[in-house]
């Protein structure tokens, strides 16, 4: 999937669906090393518990059969007490072993899964912005929540017990061989169709459960979208249509689950069928062997009982195997995230550190296209000297935001390079880059928390005084003072309890607190009223002394006050220079400015 576009960053999250089952487990264990801890001990406990489960009925039966009607027809009290105590001891040991085994499994499983979740979560954040955007959020959420939850059951009630079942099958076979190799063969032949069909079923089941897990992601996306866009759904009264789509997703999930369950039930029932066949086979062949004087009646009957010793673990094993497919389907999807390359590789400790102080920016023949799309920026070549204030203007869709995202390394160019202080951004340590360069994106996003917490997102250790000081510098002191709860104001989900303008103010405050050397504002004040916008503009002018700033704006007032204006048109820089020069030239800028002035003139 990711290899088809070797030259490009992959933009889809790996589904993981092509990873084979055993490989999934192997990689899963590699991701969560906790799963391996204490495995031997747990395994021994499992064996102990299993032996106990077989021994206890036998011990009880022995006590009954031999003890109650002892040699003289009277109960053999001594024997009974001894056997009874032994049986009791066996019960206790089994119980304790089984408790210890399960609780150890729970512990390692949950610890391993927490690690898996966290790693996957982290990896989502390490993915390029584009990849994050192409995967639907609901589906991403399902991968770190419900997909992981599926694995837990399997790790606790599957994995080890399956190995034990296989062992039991082996032991039963050995015991049966001890009685009669011919009849053992008969039993195995009767089960052969089951064992052979298992592979087929596993494949079908694996597909079926992969579909189920995929449908969960689709369902959650279908549910979350109208919840986030509730206002649009309401005001356009499209509840019914929306519900239909959700219902369709729910139905698809239901159908997929039922289908998978059908396979499970069917493959499980095959075990019982083989058991019946084996019983009949043993008796009939037993009689036949008896005619050849190879076996006694007692042995045939004993063997018939042994068969159940064989059938039980087979059924258990089949069940675990079928149910494992669900878990593995979930596991695959989580591992799929981890296997999606994080193309914007952080050079880490090898990377260079940007020196503090205003940053010098250079775009060197940068060409960019969104995956599968045409070039959006063509051969962009430009230099912004440190300490200047540059305004970028241009028609909508001309590539301004794309430029900003390349500049802040949210994406890497297809061709060419972006250099900050002469260093290719790809060689700069992420921590240093994020420290020095801050982008305030077009859509401000706030976290469902207080104003304070959101501001602190820019500088984690900022005190209230620092936040207020920062607000004052930006000319926002009046606004903060006017809030009834001040810094304790809750901003709501995505910041929706604030007005659109206020959201932008918070985003700005957050960026200012981060104290960057290069500040990139992508229409950061587009929803703020002109008065406040101008006030902020003036404040920023002061604050940007000794820093580099790039401001994208449609309100040309920003351009008028910048040191330099860069005009972008259809992915190319068509003009650049100070405002005064550009208005005088015949070109795109003059046109834009004319519209702007005409609008203001009224």
């Amino acid at each position, binding site marked *: 999937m990711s290899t088809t576009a070797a030259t490009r960053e992959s933009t889809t999250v790996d589904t993981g669906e092509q990873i084979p089952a055993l490989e999934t487990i192997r990689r899963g264990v590699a991701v969560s090393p906790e799963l391996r801890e204490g495995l031997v001990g747990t395994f021994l406990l499992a064996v102990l518990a299993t032996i106990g489960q077989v021994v206890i009925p036998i011990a009880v039966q022995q006590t009954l059969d031999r003890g109650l009607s002892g040699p003289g027809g009277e109960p053999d009290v001594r024997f009974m007490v001894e056997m009874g105590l032994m049986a009791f001891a066996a019960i206790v040991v089994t119980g304790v072993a089984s408790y210890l085994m399960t609780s150890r499994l729970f512990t390692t499983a949950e610890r391993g899964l927490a690690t898996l979740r966290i790693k996957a979560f982290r990896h989502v954040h390490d993915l390029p912005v584009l990849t994050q955007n192409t995967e639907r959020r609901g589906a991403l959420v399902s991968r770190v929540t419900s997909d992981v939850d599926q694995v837990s059951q399997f790790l606790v009630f599957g994995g080890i017990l399956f190995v034990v079942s296989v062992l039991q099958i082996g032991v039963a076979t050995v015991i049966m061989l001890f009685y009669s190799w011919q009849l053992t063969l008969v039993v195995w032949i009767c089960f052969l169709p089951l064992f052979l069909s298992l592979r087929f079923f596993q494949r079908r089941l694996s597909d079926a459960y992969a579909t189920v897990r995929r449908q969960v992601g689709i369902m959650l996306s279908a549910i979350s979208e109208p919840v986030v*866009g509730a*206002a649009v759904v309401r005001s356009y009264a499209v509840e019914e249509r929306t519900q239909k789509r959700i219902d369709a997703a729910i139905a698809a999930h239901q159908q997929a689950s039922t289908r998978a369950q059908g396979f499970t039930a069917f493959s499980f029932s095959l075990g019982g069928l083989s058991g*019946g066949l084996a019983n009949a086979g043993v008796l009939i062949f037993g009689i036949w062997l008896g005619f050849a004087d190879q076996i006694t009646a007692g042995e045939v009957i004993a063997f*018939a009982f042994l068969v159940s010793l064989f059938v039980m673990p087979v059924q258990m094993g089949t069940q675990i195997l079928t149910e494992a497919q669900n878990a593995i389907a979930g596991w695959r999807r989580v591992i799929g995230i981890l296997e999606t390359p994080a193309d914007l590789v952080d050079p880490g400790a090898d990377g260079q550190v940007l020196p503090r102080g205003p940053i010098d920016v250079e775009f060197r023949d940068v060409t960019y296209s969104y995956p599968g799309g045409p070039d959006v920026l063509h051969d962009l070549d430009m230099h912004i000297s440190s300490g200047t204030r540059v305004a970028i203007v241009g028609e909508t869709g001309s590539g301004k935001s794309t430029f900003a995202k390349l500049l802040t390394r949210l994406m890497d160019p297809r061709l060419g390079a972006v250099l900050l202080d002469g260093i290719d951004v790809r060689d700069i340590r992420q921590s240093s880059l994020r420290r020095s360069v801050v982008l305030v994106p077009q859509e401000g996003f706030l976290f469902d928390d207080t104003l304070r917490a959101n501001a602190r997102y820019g500088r984690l250790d900022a005190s209230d005084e620092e936040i207020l000081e920062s607000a004052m510098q930006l000319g926002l002191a009046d606004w903060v003072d006017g809030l009834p709860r001040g810094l304790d104001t809750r901003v709501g989900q995505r910041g929706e309890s604030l007005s659109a303008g206020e959201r932008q103010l918070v985003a700005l405050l957050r960026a200012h607190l981060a104290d960057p050397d290069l500040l990139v504002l992508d*229409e950061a004040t587009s929803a703020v009223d002109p008065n406040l916008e101008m006030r902020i503009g003036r404040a920023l002018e002061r604050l940007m002394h000794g820093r580099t700033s790039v401001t994208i704006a449609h309100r040309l007032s920003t351009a008028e006050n910048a040191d330099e204006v860069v005009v972008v048109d259809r992915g190319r820089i068509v003009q650049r220079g100070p405002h005064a020069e550009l208005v005088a030239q015949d070109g795109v800028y003059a046109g834009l400015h004319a519209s702007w002035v005409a609008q203001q003139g009224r």
Partner: protein
Amino acid sequence: MPRRTSTTRDGFAVLAVAIRREPWIFTVSTIGSVLFGALTVADAWVLGWSTQHAVLPAFDTGEVSAGVLWAVLGLFVGVAILRAVGIVARRLGAGVMQYRMQAHYRRAVTRQYLTLPMEWHQKHPTGELLSNANSDVEAAWGPIAPLPMAVGTVVMMVIAVVQMLLADLVLAMVGLLVFPAVIVANLAYQRAASPLMTRAQQLRAELSEVAHESFDGAMVVKTLGRESEETERFAAKAHELRDVSIRAGRIRAAFDPTLTALPNVGVLVVLALGVYRVLHGQSDPGNVITIAYLLTIVSFPIRSLGWLLGEFPRSVVGFDRVTAVLQATGEMQYGASRLEGTGGALLEVDHLAYAHEPDGRLLDDVTFTVTPGRTVALVGATASGKSTLTSLMTRLVDPDAGAIRVDGTDLRDLAKGELARSVAVVPQAAFLFDDTVRDNITLGADVPDEEVWAALRTAQADGFVAALPGALDARLGERGTSLSGGQRQRISLARALVRKPRLLILDDATSAVDPEVEARILGALRGGVGGGNVDDGGGDGGDSTLVVVAYRKATIGLADEVIHLADGEVVDRGSHVELLDRSPAYADLVNAYEQQPAGEAE
């Protein structure tokens, strides 16, 4: 607290809901389970019969008729097939029932999401809602899987118990002490596990919340380099969930072996007492054996009951959480009135008051009228309540006092969906669905493509849409991520225009477009709305009433009248020129762009 003591009862109550809802499937799967149980017993009988009629005679006489052998084969295979049918009926039945219940409840929950008011949505994070619809619903119906087995084996248990009582009353009573012991064990388990399960489900929701929010804000996380902090936030929840799950797992790990051990211990006690009674001539060995055997038979039903009860705490918690959503009230009440008029609508805002917070004060006493076909600009500083007013006008929320009337009808008296037929709003933040361009505009309405194109033309979006691969059929990605900010906004505008609303509300709907495009949009709107020439490409109907929220004079210039909103009231109204003249506050607000930067002057 009452919750804790009655988890068992609540658990059965939840199951009763499912059984009432799906009685037939439940019956089928229970019959399947009974069939399975009966045939397991039949298996033993077939083995006995075969021994008696085939094996022993054959070994005695040295010959056996083919008929008998066929009978043996037939019986075993027949029983096995029937049992396989039982297994399929039970498992598939349980699966179908479980998934149907899940689907019922998912539909009900999501229906609730679509009807509950915006206020409710603001208090419930998207991630939590996802968890309610997914994990909680799943948890609620978890016990359906082991249910048929448990019910089926209860029959087995009853038969065994009756036989025990018939054999030796005293011994049977002692043996039956197993049941109170099971109940005590169960109570202890439910009591210990319930609070942990409650916490775990809560944490699952919180985990989903963090994941959803964090992925939603991935861009901000990246631009500020906060990946590690976000991961820590997620890890804190994941670790808490891990710890709670481990504790719950340990309790579960103790519960299962206890239930397995109890009948075995019971057998030993019965034996001890039985020996005493046999020695004292109060009972004979046969009865003791019978009762002991019957007790071992009972142990299987007890275990399967244990699987059922083990699921209860999680089920009850899940069900409670889902029920809380289903019982949430406050959905809007609708009247029965219709809006029959044509042409522009009359909008009256009458002594309107609204506050987001109970003690707050946002809109105090807002009164104005917009006569049909007129254009009114709502002007006010950031956070003055303009968007709030538009959401009142589209009845996303209802006023605290006063009323809004369209064509003289109070919005609250209108039938559901009626308002949207006449009024369309372009929200401040464009929200696009993960869908095609066409569906994003029509939202499922049956609109010919020409009209879609006409609307796109008015919104100045026809150019870039035509250039998209597939044009109207191009998919936009979640929230329209594959478009630029201005492109998104114009799609959102076209969505409103295509409806030819009688009242069109634009909430700062051109904030993200450049001055030239803005001028063209406004020109087209003016042509369509103000001038009354119906078909100059605008799909907006001839003489709609238009309310625009605006800061910029270009947009304000559209309006016949300006309403200046401040301090929760209409402080002034009149034409733009009049207001400029008489209101310094207004002039300050809208003229800001022209007043040369005070900072530079100083």
